[in-house]
């Protein structure tokens, strides 16, 4: 019998290490015959820690939210007596989270042990590269990728075969295949999940790509905020090297290729490929003008091709199953599947991989289970700070590059941050501009100064000091920044403002002209008050951090508005619903 504990970052953050330690202790103390192992994140992050118990015949029982105190029951009942602990088993409605997905990139995530190369090989791993090296020319590989219709999963959606072909056509003594694992979009975590849960699929994809463009060196640029991902990837590379999948004369084909890791140091702009290359070279990560494109002059001025983690991880599957099988999934020119990171005000937060073309509402309500506390949904932010907000009335939009772009947002790297009636859209814009302002590298005036000015206006509006003409000024600045910035960061920075202005203009107007924040989120525009439902229990006055609430025991309390810092603690703690916010 095997006990497999999900140990992605999210599992560990939910206490998986403690659960694992408890299993090991109990199994040892009680002399039970069972092995304890690990796996990556299966994507049901909201149910972590997840424990899978495999019988010797391969049958699997999935337990969810297993804290150390639940371990004893599982060991005593299931491991010893073979009786499943029903109350801890994943519920049907939660199991449906996975059943509605179609998994290509995440095919092994949450199933195999990412630190054990044998488990990857057992799933058919490294067969694709064997096939490529024995039977295919670089041109054949590129043709197969062309047939598959695979496009960049990092944001831009550029056809992968085209980039590979450009790198192949540029002859040089050395070429580089780079993986962009600098998942900088706050709210997206599918790359982390692949790196932590199935690093070998990325490595195999990079070897195949390296062969197709006749590169000798692969480089993974991974963000420093993902220490576990770097650790697992490093081990995977060493194991692959030991097996002869990396290094000289791979599979006796004469193809030499190796991969190294470079840790990023925290800069969103390094997702832009020329900035990424500057960072790889140990410089400040500032973009430069294109052309020359990296395919001609990239890392150390040599032909370089950069793809994102998810793109690379698709490659072995495409080679094994054929480009046509991949192209059979999806809609129109958006082929295959896409992983979406569901977060924000959603019931079931986690990773969902679906065929492209599924309507947004099926992802959010079907898989994601709808909105936390059954509040009213307002929209979803797609594509992070470079993307935009898709309002709830457009939730029938299929998730394809083309359809999402039409709404003003982008598919981006696949982050979906769900927002409900309590989310203020002006504040969201302010949040994103605050982010892009900080992350602007400062090279282009429009981006450096323009984002700052836009932020100042948005801060003014959320503070209730908005002026007539602010909206028009925002629109003017947005257009100028889009035109005047050199790289993707600046060109897309105004998108969150433009989409919220397009779909939620009334919220901006309410803030400016009526001094009202309908989401009751902007502190300067709200006011807490105690109604006559107050029983005088004094709890709120005890909880108030600034002593703004006074009143007699059993008498109605009052908030001193000059002292109130609007933290909302009184309302959260009131047992009688006597505190309102306007």
């Amino acid at each position, binding site marked *: 019998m095997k006990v497999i504990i999900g140990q992605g970052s*999210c599992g560990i953050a939910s206490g998986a290490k403690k659960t694992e330690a408890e299993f090991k202790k109990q199994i040892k103390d009680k002399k039970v015959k069972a092995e304890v192992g690990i796996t990556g994140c299966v994507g049901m992050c*909201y149910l972590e820690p997840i424990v899978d118990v495999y019988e010797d015949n391969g049958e699997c029982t999935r337990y969810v939210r297993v804290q150390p105190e639940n371990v004893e029951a599982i060991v005593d009942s299931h491991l010893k007596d073979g009786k499943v602990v029903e109350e801890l088993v994943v519920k049907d409605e939660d199991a449906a989270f996975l059943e509605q997905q179609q998994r290509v990139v995440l095919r092994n995530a949450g199933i195999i042990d990412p630190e054990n190369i044998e488990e990857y090989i057992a799933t058919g791993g490294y067969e694709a590269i064997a096939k490529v090296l024995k039977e295919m020319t670089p041109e054949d590989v590129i043709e197969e990728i062309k047939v598959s219709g695979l496009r960049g999963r990092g944001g831009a959606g550029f056809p992968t075969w085209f980039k590979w072909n450009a790198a192949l056509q540029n002859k040089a003594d050395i070429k580089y295949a780079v993986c962009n694992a600098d998942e900088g979009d*706050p*709210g997206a*975590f599918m790359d982390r999940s692949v790196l932590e849960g199935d690093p070998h699929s990325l490595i195999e994809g990079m070897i195949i790509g390296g062969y197709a463009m006749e590169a000798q060196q692969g480089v993974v640029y991974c963000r420093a905020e993902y220490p576990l991902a770097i650790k697992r990837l490093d081990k995977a590379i060493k194991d692959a090297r030991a097996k002869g999948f990396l290094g000289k004369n791979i599979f006796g084909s004469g193809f030499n290729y190796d991969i190294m890791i470079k840790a990023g140091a925290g800069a969103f702009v390094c997702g832009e490929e020329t900035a990424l290359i500057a960072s790889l070279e*140990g410089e400040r990560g500032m973009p430069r003008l294109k052309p020359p494109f990296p395919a001609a002059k990239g890392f150390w001025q040599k032909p370089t091709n950069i793809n994102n983690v998810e793109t690379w991880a698709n490659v072995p599957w495409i080679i094994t199953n054929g480009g046509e099988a991949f192209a059979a999934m999806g809609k129109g020119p958006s082929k295959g599947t896409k992983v979406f990171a569901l*977060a*924000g005000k959603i019931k079931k937060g986690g990773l969902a991989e679906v065929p492209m073309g599924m309507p947004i509402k099926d992802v959010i309500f079907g898989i994601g289970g709808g909105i936390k506390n059954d509040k009213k949904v307002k929209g979803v932010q797609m594509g992070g700070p470079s993307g935009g907000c898709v309002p709830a009335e457009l939730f029938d939009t299929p998730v394809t590059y083309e359809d999402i772009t039409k709404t003003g947002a982008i598919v981006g790297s696949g982050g979906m941050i769900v927002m409900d009636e309590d989310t203020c859209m002006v504040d969201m814009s302010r949040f*994103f501009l605050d982010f892009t302002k900080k992350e602007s590298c400062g090279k282009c005036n429009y981006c450096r100064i323009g984002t700052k000015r836009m932020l100042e206006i948005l801060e003014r509006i959320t503070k209730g000091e908005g002026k007539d003409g602010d909206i028009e000024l925002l629109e003017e600045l947005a257009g100028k920044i889009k035109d005047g910035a050199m790289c993707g960061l600046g060109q897309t920075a105004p998108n969150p403002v433009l989409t919220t202005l397009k779909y939620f203009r009334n919220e901006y107007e309410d803030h400016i002209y009526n001094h009202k924040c309908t989401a009751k989120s902007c502190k300067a525009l709200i006011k807490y008050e105690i109604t006559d439902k107050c029983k005088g229990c004094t709890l709120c006055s005890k909880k108030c951090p600034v002593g703004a609430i006074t009143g007699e025991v059993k008498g109605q309390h009052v908030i001193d508005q000059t002292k109130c810092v609007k933290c909302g603690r009184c309302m*959260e703690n009131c047992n009688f619903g006597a505190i309102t916010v306007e």
Partner: protein
Amino acid sequence: MSEQKCDCGNRSQQFKELAPVLKEYAKVPGSLITILQNAQEIYGYLSPDLINYISEETGIRPAKIYGVATFYAQFRMEPVGKYLIMLCKGTACHVNGSDMIEESVCEHLGIQDGETTEDGIFTLNNVACLGCCSLAPVMMVQSADGDETYGNLTKDSVKDILDEIRKNA
């Protein structure tokens, strides 16, 4: 004016833990960020002395090292407390109230983003995204004992967590 002596010899003594890193990377082009990451991991932050030492060993001008170090969010020029609180300010955390959590932390510890408590126990750093979005709001606490991540924070739970850490500090 007092007599100035070259302290190069002292520096290599002062930063002897960095020697293996410099041996491996000092002459490898493009390794500056890697060297700085290792240096920060050993010494906690990049002091002017440390930057000068790296400059001497690599031949890269101090101004350039400073330029690279200040470009990236990861590098610090000031010492940090025993526990580094990395408070996630990513989108999912923002939507789920990370501003409130920050307020609560600031109020409880009496420090702002980037500052260290007087007793040297805690430093607060806001970070872009920890990638644990489904547990939002989230913070990671880094110390010599390793990293610990805390999810689904509330204004009150975060205070309890910090009190617990301080008790065991």
